[in-house]
C-alpha cells in the first residue's frame, strides 16, 4: 500500500486537477472533429491542445512531450514537500510513443526523455519508463507500489504523458479503431476511440501521517489470446480484478473506473469481465468522452479524476453513453450519481493482451506495509548476440522452426521469441497459468518498427499506414507474443532504461515478484537493430519463497 501525496492533470480541459474536475462536472469535453489535420486523409475526433495552450506549456530546449511532463510534475510538487534526500525519490514515466516526432534524433529515446525530465525536476536517481501500451499508467503505479513497499525508495513520482501525432492517429486508423465523432463508451452506437493528449502526475509516498488516498493493491494478467483483440470472455481482466480485489469487500466500492475506449471489442470484453467478477451492481465511470484515449497518460489521469470525484461524493457521468450496447451485465449512466463510499477500482486493458486492475481506498491507516522479500533463483540463461555471426532467422530455422508467425513479427519480437524458445528448451517446466510472468527491458524501445511504420506514412503520394507494422510499434507486444506462444497468463511488462543496469533490473524484478503470486518469470535485456545486429540476455527465474 502506498499513499497519494499530491497530483496534477494537465489536459486541454485545464492545467490543474481542479480546473479539469470543474470542466468535467460542467459537462465539457475537449473532443473535436478534425479534418485534414497533419495531412491525414481520414477525419477523426480527438482531444488536442490548442496552439495557445501549447505555447503556454512549451519549455525552451525541451520537446513538447518533455515539457508537458515537466509542467505536470512541477504543478503536482507545488502541493507537497518530499524532503531533502533526493536519492530516495524515483521517477516513473508512462507513455506509449513519447517524443515519436523526434525519430532519428537522440531525443526520440523514451529513456532519454525520462532522464531529461528527471534532471529538470532535480532528481538524480535513474528513471524508469513503463511502456505497456494502454495500461502503462496503471502499470507505472503498480511498479511504484512494488518499489516503495520493498523500501527501495521512499517516494515515487509517476507521470503519464502522451502527445498525439500523425504517427499514432494514422496507426489507430489503420486498425479501424478511430471514430470521427466523439466516442460513446459502452453505448450501442459506439464505433471507435478518439486519441487524446495530456499529462498527469501522482506523487506517492511509502508512508503518510494524514488521511489520504492509497493504492492498496493491484494485479496484471495477460490474456495470452491475441496481440490486439481482447479475449472475448475477458479472461485476463477478470483474473486481474479478482487478484486486486482479493479479500476486499466489493460493497465498499464507489465506482469501477473502466477503460471504456468505445471500441466494439474493448467495451464488450470489459462488460463480461465486470459481470464475471461480480461487480455488475457497482456504478461504472467511463471518462473517455471527456478526454479521448490519452494512452500513456490515461491510467494516471483517470485515477486522479476518480479520486477527486469520490472526494466530492460523486460518481462521474459516462459522457457519450445513452443506451447499453454490451452484453455483460453492468451499471452505467450518463448522469452523475452520488456516493458516500471511499474506495474504487480502476481497470485497463491493452495491446499485447495485458490487463491491469488497481484498488484505491481513502484511509487513515498510516503504517508502512512491507511485502516479504522474494528469493529469486536464476535457473537458466540464454545470451544471444550478433557477434556470434549467426542471423536470427538462421537460429530460428536451425533450432526452432514450425512457427510461421515468426516471419510476421518485428525484429524485437523475433529476438524475444527465439530467446524464449531456446530458454524453455533447456529445462523441464510445468506451465501453470497465472504463475508465469514475462518482464523485459531494453534501451531502444520499438525503434525498428517505428522506422518501418514511419516509412508507410511519410509520403503523401504513397500513404498506406500498415496495421501489422503499427502493432509492433509498442515494445510490450514482444511480451504478448511470448504469452500467446506459451499460454502464459501472469504479469507481462516492458520497461525502458537508459542502459542495461543489472542492479535496477534486479530490484524491479524482486519487488514485482515479492508483491505478486508469480512463481516463475522470464526476464532480461533485449535490443535489436536488425536480423544480424542484436543483443539478448534472457533468464528464467524461480521464486523459492518469500522470506
Amino acid at each position, binding site marked *: 500500500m502506498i499513499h497519494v501525496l499530491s497530483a496534477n492533470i494537465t489536459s486541454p480541459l485545464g492545467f490543474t486537477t481542479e480546473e479539469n474536475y470543474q470542466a468535467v462536472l460542467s459537462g465539457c469535453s475537449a473532443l473535436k472533429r478534425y479534418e485534414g489535420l497533419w495531412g491525414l486523409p481520414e477525419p477523426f475526433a480527438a482531444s488536442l491542445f490548442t496552439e495557445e495552450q501549447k505555447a503556454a506549456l512549451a519549455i525552451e530546449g525541451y520537446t513538447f512531450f518533455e515539457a508537458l511532463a515537466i509542467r505536470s510534475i512541477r504543478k503536482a510538487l507545488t502541493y507537497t514537500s518530499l524532503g531533502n534526500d533526493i536519492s530516495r525519490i524515483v521517477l516513473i514515466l508512462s507513455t506509449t510513443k513519447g517524443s515519436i516526432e523526434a525519430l532519428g534524433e537522440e531525443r526520440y529515446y523514451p529513456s532519454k526523455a525520462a532522464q531529461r525530465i528527471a534532471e529538470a525536476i532535480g532528481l538524480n536517481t535513474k528513471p524508469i519508463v513503463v511502456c505497456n501500451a494502454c495500461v502503462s499508467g496503471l502499470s507505472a503505479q503498480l511498479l511504484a507500489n512494488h518499489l516503495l513497499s520493498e523500501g527501495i525508495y521512499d517516494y515515487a513520482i509517476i507521470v503519464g504523458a502522451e502527445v498525439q501525432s500523425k504517427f499514432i492517429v494514422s496507426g489507430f486508423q489503420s486498425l479501424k479503431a478511430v471514430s470521427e465523432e466523439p466516442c460513446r463508451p459502452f453505448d450501442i452506437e459506439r464505433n471507435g476511440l478518439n486519441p487524446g493528449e495530456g499529462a498527469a502526475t501522482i506523487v506517492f509516498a511509502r508512508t503518510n501521517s494524514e488521511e489520504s488516498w492509497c493504492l492498496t493493491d493491484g494485479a496484471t494478467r495477460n490474456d495470452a489470446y491475441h496481440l490486439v483483440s481482447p479475449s472475448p470472455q475477458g479472461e485476463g481482466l477478470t483474473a486481474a480484478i479478482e487478484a486486486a480485489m482479493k479479500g476486499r469487500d466489493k460493497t465498499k466500492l464507489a465506482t469501477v473506473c473502466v477503460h471504456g475506449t468505445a471500441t466494439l471489442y474493448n467495451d464488450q470484453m470489459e462488460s463480461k469481465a465486470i459481470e464475471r467478477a461480480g461487480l455488475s451492481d457497482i456504478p461504472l465511470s467511463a471518462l473517455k468522452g471527456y478526454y479521448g484515449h490519452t494512452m500513456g497518460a490515461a491510467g494516471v489521469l483517470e485515477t486522479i479524476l476518480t479520486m477527486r470525484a469520490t472526494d466530492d461524493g460523486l460518481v462521474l457521468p459516462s459522457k457519450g453513453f445513452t443506451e447499453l450496447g454490451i452484453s455483460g451485465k453492468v451499471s452505467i449512466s450518463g448522469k452523475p450519481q452520488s456516493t458516500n463510499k471511499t474506495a474504487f477500482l480502476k481497470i485497463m486493458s491493452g495491446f499485447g493482451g495485458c490487463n491491469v486492475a488497481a484498488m484505491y481506498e481513502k484511509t487513515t491507516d498510516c503504517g508502512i506495509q512491507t511485502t516479504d522479500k522474494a528469493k529469486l533463483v536464476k535457473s537458466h540463461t540464454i545470451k544471444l548476440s550478433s557477434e556470434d555471426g549467426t542471423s536470427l532467422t538462421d537460429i530460428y530455422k536451425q533450432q526452432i522452426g514450425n512457427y510461421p508467425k*515468426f516471419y510476421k513479427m518485428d525484429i524485437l519480437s523475433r529476438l524475444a521469441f527465439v530467446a524464449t524458445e531456446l530458454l524453455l528448451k533447456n529445462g523441464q517446466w510445468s506451465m501453470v497459468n497465472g504463475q508465469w510472468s514475462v518482464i523485459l527491458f531494453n534501451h531502444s524501445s520499438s525503434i525498428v518498427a517505428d522506422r518501418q511504420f514511419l516509412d508507410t506514412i511519410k509520403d503523401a503520394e504513397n500513404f498506406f499506414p500498415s496495421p*501489422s507494422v503499427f502493432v509492433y510499434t509498442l515494445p510490450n507486444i514482444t511480451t504478448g507474443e511470448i504469452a500467446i506462444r506459451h499460454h502464459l497468463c501472469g504479469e507481462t511488462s516492458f520497461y525502458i532504461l537508459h542502459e542495461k543496469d543489472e542492479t535496477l533490473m534486479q530490484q524491479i524484478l524482486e519487488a514485482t515478484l515479492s508483491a505478486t503470486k508469480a512463481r516463475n518469470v522470464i526476464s532480461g535485456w533485449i535490443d535489436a537493430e536488425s536480423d544480424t545486429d542484436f543483443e539478448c540476455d534472457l533468464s528464467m527465474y524461480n521464486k523459492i519463497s518469500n522470506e
Partner: protein
Amino acid sequence: MEQLIKDLKLQIKNALNLEELSLEEFDENAPLFGDEGIGLDSIDILEIIVLLEKEYGIRLANPKEGKAIFQSVKTIAEYVQANRKK
C-alpha cells in the same frame, strides 16, 4: 482472371509475410481464415484492405463488409475484378 489470382497470391504472401507458404501450394479456393485453411487473423484482413487500396485503388472503409470478400483468394479476385480502379 488467372493472372489476377496469381498476382494476388504473390501480393498477399509478401504483404502478410507468409514466408513458409509456397505459391504452388497456395490454393485460391482454400479458406483464408480459421484452422482449416491459411489461418489468417483480424490484423491480416486489415493488411489485405491496405493492399487492395494500394494495388487496385479499392477503398473498403468498413472491415465488416469484407467478410464475404475475404473468404478465399478466389473471392477476393472476383471482387477486385468487379471494383478495381487501377
